[in-house]
């Protein structure tokens, strides 16, 4: 019965991504790093009405990333920073010395995106290869890879919901999440396949270890998220945090269920 929960989570995530695709033509919004354009980061020390700002600045995408002070991120396909900064004065006070401006030609954005896709494909392939070498059995390999794909989709959906764009940094975090988040999965699969004794007690034993790992992972990300005061680090922590949480659900409910069924059947 519990297995419905990860399945539901995955289904909702897929729906979110499909909805994005139908509405925008892409499953997740990409940062200018991957599309080309201009990104301006402005620390906000006064009051800011984001809605008014969005209405006031044409053809730009605006988001506020938490921190002290919060960082206003403005993305624009039009690469005219002076014009944007001039218009911004009406809505918020800022110190020009603290403003960071990044300008990327669409051609480089395209190259980054192509390479990003290739890196993801390579990462999935190499992970699958390592898992297969480790367990040499189709069902356990399938569960680990299914879990990785689920984690990936759920994290993408969470990014989309919370307005975290796909950028070079978040792409790196996704790759890292793929590598790291399967620790608990391997722990479970090893316990089921290689430990002697009753499967239930084996799973119970390693679940405690696995949940400690998840807890340690999530708690260590919290200070990094809240204290780093840097949007890039916050986005990376967010991706890893969601990935680790999704991993716990997919490992201890979904994969434990599939492996239990498979061992019983065997």
């Amino acid at each position: 019965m519990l297995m419905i929960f990860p399945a539901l989570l995955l289904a909702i995530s897929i729906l979110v991504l499909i909805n994005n695709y139908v509405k925008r033509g892409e499953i997740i919004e990409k940062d200018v790093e991957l599309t080309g354009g201009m990104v301006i980061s402005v620390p906000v020390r006064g009051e800011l009405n984001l809605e008014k700002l969005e209405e006031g600045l044409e053809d730009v995408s605006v988001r506020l990333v938490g921190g002290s002070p919060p960082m206003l991120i403005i993305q624009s396909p039009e690469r005219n920073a002076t014009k944007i900064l001039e218009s911004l004065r009406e809505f918020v006070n800022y110190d020009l010395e603290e403003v960071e401006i990044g300008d990327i030609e669409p051609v480089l954005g395209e190259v980054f995106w192509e390479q990003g896709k290739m890196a993801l494909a390579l990462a999935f392939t190499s992970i699958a290869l390592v898992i297969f070498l480790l367990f040499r059995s189709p069902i356990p390999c399938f569960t680990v890879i299914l879990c990785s794909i689920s984690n990936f989709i759920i994290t993408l959906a969470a990014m989309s919901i919370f307005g975290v764009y796909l950028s070079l940094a978040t792409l790196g975090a996704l790759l890292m999440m793929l590598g790291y988040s399967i620790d608990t999965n391997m722990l479970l699969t090893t316990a089921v396949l290689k430990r002697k004794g009753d499967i239930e007690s084996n799973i119970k034993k390693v679940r405690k270890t696995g949940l400690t790992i998840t807890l340690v992972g999530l708690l260590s990300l919290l200070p990094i998220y809240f204290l780093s005061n840097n949007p890039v680090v916050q986005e990376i922590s967010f991706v890893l945090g969601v990935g680790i949480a999704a991993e716990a659900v997919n490992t201890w409910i979904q994969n434990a269920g599939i492996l239990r069924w498979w061992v019983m059947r065997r």
Partner: protein
Amino acid sequence: MDPKCRYSPLVGDEEVSTLKNPKVLLLILCWIASVLLIAPWPKSGMVVEEVGENSSLYQKLFPGDIVFSINKIPIEEVDLTQFEGKFVSIETSRGKIDLFLNRSDIKLRKRDFTNLKFGLDLQGGIYAVVEPECNATAEILNEIKLILEKRTSSLREAMFQVSRFGDRSFIQIQIAGGTESELKQLLNTTGVFEGKIPLHVSFEEGRGVLKIGAESEWVDVTYCNGKVCLLGEEIEINETLTYKGIELQLVNLTESRADFLAVIYRNAGERRDIVRVYIDPERSWLRKEGAYYSWGFQVEITPEAAQRFYDVVRNLAVRSTGIGGEAYLEERLYLYLDGKEVSNLSISAGLKEKPVTVASVTGSALTREEAMRERSFLQNILRSGSLPCSIKIVSMKNITPKLGTTFLQNLVMAGIIALVVITFVLLARYRNLKVVMLSAFTSISEIVFILAGSVLLNWTLDLGALIGILMVIGSGVTQEVMIIDEIIHGEVEKTSLRERISRAFSIILGSAGTVIGAMFPLLIFGFGLLRGFAITTILGVLIGVGITRSAFSHLVRKIYE
């Protein structure tokens, strides 16, 4: 809880004391090596940040060099301006420099406390990515990189990295400080420098003479239906031909007159007629002349270029007399950079007497700063040479130093708090202070070893690298949890300790494999942030698997014995 392990000896592990155990010994050795590599203690000397163009040390010292002493007095104890107007002996990382210090104009800063190198995203600067606008081979790419390095090295500390994506190549540039416009100007200039002198031929009944070289070498030119015929060739407007090594471009043609531009000097690709650019105050000057500032510097040209210059000017008439009675020739020398005229100079009548290998490049500007900037820009371009092909800036980003420094402090603080949080969680779970402290020590060891690895690899710690380190701590602790649990599970399990530890290590190795597998593509393709991220993560995983976690498993086992 203090579980009793089922204990079965591991071959070659228990016969020796803890300190003599190879894994622990390796850990200790790595600590010693890391401390020596990072060298966290004050060091003598100061680092050069910038050398002014008017400094006597310009082009003798470069940003990043270390100055130890001046006249045997430690540099930290003196003010360099006190030595202006004196002969000095300066000990530097480039060796001893003896010179007359006319003007110091040098910016020094304290040496870093450690040997760690931090990226621009942590100290502020400009980050740019450029792409050659030609089919760049590895050689061309390297040449472009070297030229750009030369162009920027005299200004500020800079880092360059070449990346290839399929059939496209890019060069990443990071410069500490500076302005975007300054960098754009340096990058957008291909650097093809030419010196041209106009030559005119007047036609009488369709015939004229092009006066180049000795009288016996002059060339007959005839006008034939919108073209000129000379040296057995017919050329139209904008076409060129070469005579006595001089490229002649027909720029204007009427029935009564033909105008040529003779290319005297050219610095482009393999051809480098200007072999030396003088920057010392005696041969590089800046003067206020009425409402504007004139600037200039001397250059040394090849004997061939000197001969070409002489061949062209020897037949020019002396026309005007300048201030002070100096005589000048009827034509001027026009200087072009990337096809655009940057200056034009009067030619002294004395130069038509014999070939000379020293020439002057001059110009003027309204303000002193502008004049200095123009002179230094042209000197820089001439010294570095021309790019084999033009380049396009595909990305540019400024990083404010204000945000960079606070970010590093915040990240260190976040890392410390994360470590404390992890320690408390583990303490609550295992209630064994020794094991928890050992886990924290292992995490700290991993950080120190990664930092030492960055020094060893001469790798700059950027934002990505630091995030990678934080992530390695997280993964390290998760694997330590696996090891502790496998060891304490011996209480109830009927398997040997050896079996349990090897089971934990198979997971750790598998996990290391997947992380390396996931990060490897970034190492190959990774740009900027992602590359640093991948390097520290892979380094951390290898250090963890090879050194710290095996020592950790041995020490935890000892604690639980």
